[in-house]
């Protein structure tokens, strides 16, 4: 059964379509890249999936339920593209917070990752650099054993070494029942990680295919294909 299914989903912002009749199904065990230029609807797509936005038309099914229900929230780990954790909390308090609310939270994994990335648990979010804040949010999201991970630009603001660490974390967390959707414009970095890619343009899915199939049939990397498709 699909972990995420969009049926003719449209989202209008004041008459302008951020998402336009999207039909998409994501199967379990897949790592999917949601790719497209800025403003193509990537964030809107993810926010609709976790119920932070209501679709103007169409239907969304996520982990067998509707978006925005407590039961689906319990199975979906969402990493927003902005800072959403309260700035007055320390990393350790955030770990407690996640453990309080999420039954699938793995405290040991979170603490290990904090120590791997040299983040002091006693540090308040307010006192952290932008990059460290992003790492903390990502650690919290990845430390859950969720059925679906929705990661909005998870590697945008971190250095290449951390980027590698984060990507290997996503692989190490891989679970054949679970799926990961990563939105990014840094395609070269994530390409090897992906099973399939979805190209979004002006709110529409213009391409949805397996990475290896694309490389085989087009004779180029997804990164190169992206540059060709979205040539300015």
């Amino acid at each position, binding site marked *: 059964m699909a972990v995420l299914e969009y049926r003719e989903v449209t989202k209008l912002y004041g008459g302008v379509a951020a998402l336009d009749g999207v039909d998409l199904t994501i199967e379990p*065990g*897949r*790592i999917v890249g949601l790719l497209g230029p800025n403003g193509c609807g990537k964030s809107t797509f993810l926010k609709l999936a976790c119920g932070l936005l209501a679709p103007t038309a169409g239907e969304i099914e996520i982990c067998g339920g509707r978006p925005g229900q407590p039961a689906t929230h319990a199975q979906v780990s969402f990493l927003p593209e902005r800072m959403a954790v309260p700035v007055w909390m320390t990393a350790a308090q955030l770990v407690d917070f996640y453990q309080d609310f999420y039954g699938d939270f793995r405290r040991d994994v979170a603490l290990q990752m904090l120590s791997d990335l040299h983040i002091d648990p006693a540090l308040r979010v307010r006192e952290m650099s932008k990059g460290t804040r992003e790492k903390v949010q990502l650690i919290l999201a990845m430390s859950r054993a969720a059925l679906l991970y929705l990661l909005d630009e998870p590697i945008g603001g971190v250095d290449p070494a951390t980027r590698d660490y984060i990507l290997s974390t996503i692989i190490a967390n891989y679970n054949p029942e679970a799926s990961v959707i990563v939105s990014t414009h840094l395609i070269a970095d994530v390409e*090897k*990680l992906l*099973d399939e890619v979805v190209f979004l343009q002006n709110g529409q899915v213009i391409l949805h295919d397996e*990475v*290896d199939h694309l*490389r085989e049939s087009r004779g180029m990397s997804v990164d190169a294909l992206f540059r060709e498709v979205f040539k300015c």
Partner: protein
Amino acid sequence: MKWQFSSDVPIYAQLIAQIQTTIVSGTWPPGERLPSVRDLAAEAGVNPNTMQRAMTELERQGLVYSQRTAGRFVTEDRARIEQARLQCAQRQIQTFLDGMEQLGYTREEIRLLVEQETKGES
């Protein structure tokens, strides 16, 4: 092992080629137990499904075999490894010849050049 990927060939095909090299070169000797798919995928930075696909193909080729509980091993059939080694060599030579032909060398010229080049080394 070092993993390197070029951009235009499917990743699973590149994984197969690189693991073949590791086996025929003896880096992974016959009978050696392989790391888990997940660990290998994390090491290479690739999708675990892709690594799984490469392993399935290597199993089909008879270079590795899996035991239900114990894991996956390099084959102990040395003749099979030798055969694969020869295939790898033939592929290398073919690539080399194609490149030389593009430069406009005839087979005879190539043979002479190779002889000259290897004489100094031995």
